[in-house]
Structure formats: structure tokens, C-alpha cells
């Protein structure tokens, strides 16, 4: 690996001032490092300074804000912490669906939720469930803090709205309405250590004591350069009684509005078929999960 110095700020403010200390643009923030170190090893970049965020003792917990009921996931929470959190497993099953299948345990023990979002590779699928929950991220830079809706956060493969020197602090998931649940499918060739051929997430809210859908979010991963919502499919479902046949139609709409293409991991036609099938299946699973909450 190329030479660099390893800095260990204790606060976000300190990290940001370290970033701007030198103007050579050769500083990089690192959280878990499972992506950053790989890129350095591969020679994709050679920073002079790694500013480690591992010693910042904030933004590393999963908690419910008692005032708003919002779920706040610190950017430095690891995927393993997310996977093993009872709160996530019980109340936010769609997040658990994705967290448990990212990399391996060795990777999940180190890699952070924030790092995965900031990397913004099209196959990084932890964002998909979070987008179906209308999440936004809180970021901080020299000019202070700002919030960005997660769906807008991704600009292009590897590019986000983060400005130079900004750090992602938290992911905030607004309190979902009653009778809401979701499900996520990462479709892969093998069961582990895989990137998705396509990822399909859906979160549904039903009216009390009925199957009428009053809110739905469908988000697709690897279906375009950045995560995308299937808006036609969502609009089609609003106000209707959810059935398997209806979800099947929504799957077809999502499939046709997706921007999938041929790549080394999968073919366009296969991805289209997968979206059709899994919008339906994940939709049915979400409904099932809502029923389980009621009883």
C-alpha cells in the first residue's frame, strides 16, 4: 500500500478541520475502511492522509428519538450491529433483510452503514430499504449541518451530494404510520459474499382493518446508475385493495420503468423479470408482516 499518515480525531469538528488543514486534496475520511483500503490497495487513489472516524464517540448508536419517534442510525454503526439489533429485527424488518446479507461477518463487523452510503456504488444495496422508509441523512461540513433526502443523495455511481470535507453523521428514518411494513430482496447467484443482480424493496402502509394501501414506496437497486423509486408502480397501488394480482401488475409497471441494463452480473431481460416477480413477492411479504404486527 502507498504511504499515508493515519489521523485519529476524537470529534467531528476536529476531523473536519484536519481535512481542510492541507489544501492538496489528498485527505480522505475513513470509517470501517473495507472499501477505502481496497481502493488504496488497487491503486485507485493514494491519499497522503487517512482521517479515521473510528475514534469519534458519537453517531455510533441505533436509537429512537423519544420526541419524534424517528429512528436514528448513526453513520458509524456497523452492518453487524444493525443485523443483530433487536429493535431493527423486530420493528424494521426490511432494514434487517438487507443488513444480514452485506458481505461476510468479517466485513459487517467493520464496515459501516454510513460508509456504504457514501461510497454510492450502484450495487451497494443498504440504501434501498432506507429509501422506502423515506429516510434522510444529516451531514456536516465547515458551514454546519444540513439534511438531504436519501433518494436525492446519490448523483451518479460513486458520487453523492456530499461536498468536499462533509461527513455523513446520521441516517434518520421518520416514524412510519401504523400498519406499515416492508420487505427487501437482494437477488444473487449464490447465498453469501455476493453483490445483487438486482435489489427490490417495498414498504406498504395499509388503512386500519383493511387491505387498502394508503402509502407505498418501491425502490430498486442496480436498476439504474443510482437507486430509483418505481413511481408508476407506487401511484398505481395507492387507494387500492392490495391483492396478489394487483401487486403483479405493479411489478410489471416497476419493471418497465426501471432502467436496468446488461452487465457482467446480469442480463437486462433477467433483471426485468426479477423485478416483476419480486415486487409482487416482497409486497405480499410486507402485507404478511403487517398482519403479524396486528395480532
Amino acid at each position: 500500500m502507498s504511504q499515508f499518515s493515519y489521523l485519529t480525531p476524537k470529534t467531528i469538528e476536529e476531523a473536519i478541520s484536519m481535512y481542510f488543514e492541507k489544501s492538496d486534496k489528498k485527505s480522505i475520511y475513513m470509517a470501517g475502511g473495507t472499501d477505502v483500503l481496497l481502493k488504496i490497495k488497487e491503486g485507485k487513489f493514494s491519499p497522503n492522509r487517512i482521517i479515521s472516524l473510528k475514534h469519534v464517540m458519537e453517531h455510533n448508536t441505533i436509537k429512537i428519538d423519544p420526541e419524534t419517534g424517528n429512528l436514528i442510525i448513526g453513520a458509524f454503526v456497523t452492518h453487524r450491529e444493525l443485523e443483530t439489533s433487536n429493535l431493527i429485527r423486530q420493528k424494521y424488518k426490511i432494514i434487517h433483510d438487507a443488513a444480514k446479507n452485506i458481505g461476510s461477518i468479517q466485513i459487517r463487523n467493520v464496515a459501516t452503514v454510513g460508509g456504504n452510503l457514501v461510497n454510492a456504488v450502484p450495487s451497494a444495496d443498504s440504501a434501498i430499504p432506507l429509501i422506502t422508509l423515506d429516510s434522510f441523512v444529516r451531514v456536516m461540513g465547515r458551514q454546519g449541518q444540513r439534511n438531504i433526502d436519501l433518494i436525492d443523495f446519490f448523483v451518479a455511481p460513486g458520487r453523492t451530494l456530499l461536498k468536499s470535507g462533509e461527513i455523513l453523521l446520521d441516517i434518520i428514518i421518520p416514524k412510519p404510520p401504523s400498519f406499515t411494513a416492508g420487505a427487501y430482496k437482494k437477488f444473487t447467484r449464490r447465498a453469501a459474499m455476493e453483490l445483487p443482480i438486482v435489489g427490490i424493496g417495498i414498504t406498504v402502509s395499509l388503512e386500519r382493518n383493511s387491505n387498502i394501501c394508503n402509502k407505498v414506496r418501491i425502490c430498486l437497486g442496480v436498476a439504474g446508475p443510482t437507486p430509483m423509486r418505481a413511481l408508476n408502480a407506487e401511484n398505481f397501488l395507492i387507494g387500492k385493495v392490495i391483492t396478489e394480482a394487483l401487486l403483479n401488475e405493479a411489478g410489471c409497471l416497476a419493471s418497465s420503468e426501471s432502467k436496468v441494463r446488461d452487465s457482467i452480473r446480469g442480463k437486462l431481460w433477467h433483471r426485468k423479470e426479477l423485478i416483476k416477480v419480486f415486487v409482487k413477492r416482497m409486497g405480499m411479504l410486507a402485507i404478511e408482516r403487517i398482519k403479524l404486527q396486528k395480532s
Partner: protein
Amino acid sequence: MPTKINFTLNGEKFQKDVEDNWTLLYLLREKMGLIGTKEGCGSGECGACTVVVDGKAVNACIYLSPEINNREVITIEGLSNKNGDLNYIQQSFIDNGGIQCGFCTPGMIMSSKALLDEINDPTVENIKHALSGNICRCTGYSQIIDSVIAAKTYKKQNQ
């Protein structure tokens, strides 16, 4: 730039000057002579370099050595006792044919250790989940999973 770090390795306390760009794997193998931990892919895919840091399995090839400051590291060398008696997981791998060429074995055993330290009685599903980041090109995995299942009984007998 060298950094001075303090850490515990296999129960022993160390203070070392490490270069910031050394991986933990490099420190262990090239500077401390602990060659039980293997380098396979060097990119966090194969698990041959798995060691346990503060109770958690990590890939030593994508973990920087300055990050073990004030932490506890256990490698395959730390499992047997001072007399060279093998740990129960090691014994189980030998008894149950969990080893063929042996290259993946230290990583497999360290992942199994992290699992068995966390869950007393893991299911086959738990075992597969825990070992999914470790690649073996010889055994076809069945004997490895059998070895971990059998290790559960060895553990009970030891207690």
C-alpha cells in the same frame, strides 16, 4: 509515519512502532512472525486472514495495524495453551476431517471461535452464516460444518 501502539496479542501485552500503512496481516506475519494467519485474496473476500479483534472476527488484510491500539487480538496461534495442547475447535477439525490442504483452516477456525464464543449452541444455519466469509477450495464445506457441530460437544465436555 510510525505510530506507537499498545495491544494484547494472544494474551500477551505488546508495545510496537508500526507504519500507518501496515495492515494487521502484515504486522502479524512479517513483523511478529505469526504466519498461521494466511493471506489469500488480500481484499476481504476469502477469509483466510481472519483474526479476532475484541471478540469480533475481522479480515486482517483490510484492517490497519494502528487500529489495534488498546485492543485485544487473537490469532490461530493463540488458541492452543502453553504446552501446545490444541484448543477444542482445532481438535474437532482434525478429528472430523475439516482440513485438507489447510490453507483456509486458520481462518475457518477463527470464524468458528468467534461464533462459538458468542452462541453456545449454534444451529447449522448459524454455522453456515458465520462461515460464509471463508472460502475453502478442497473440502466442499460439509466436513468443516461437521467439525463445528462436533466442536459444540467438545466444548461441553471441556466445561
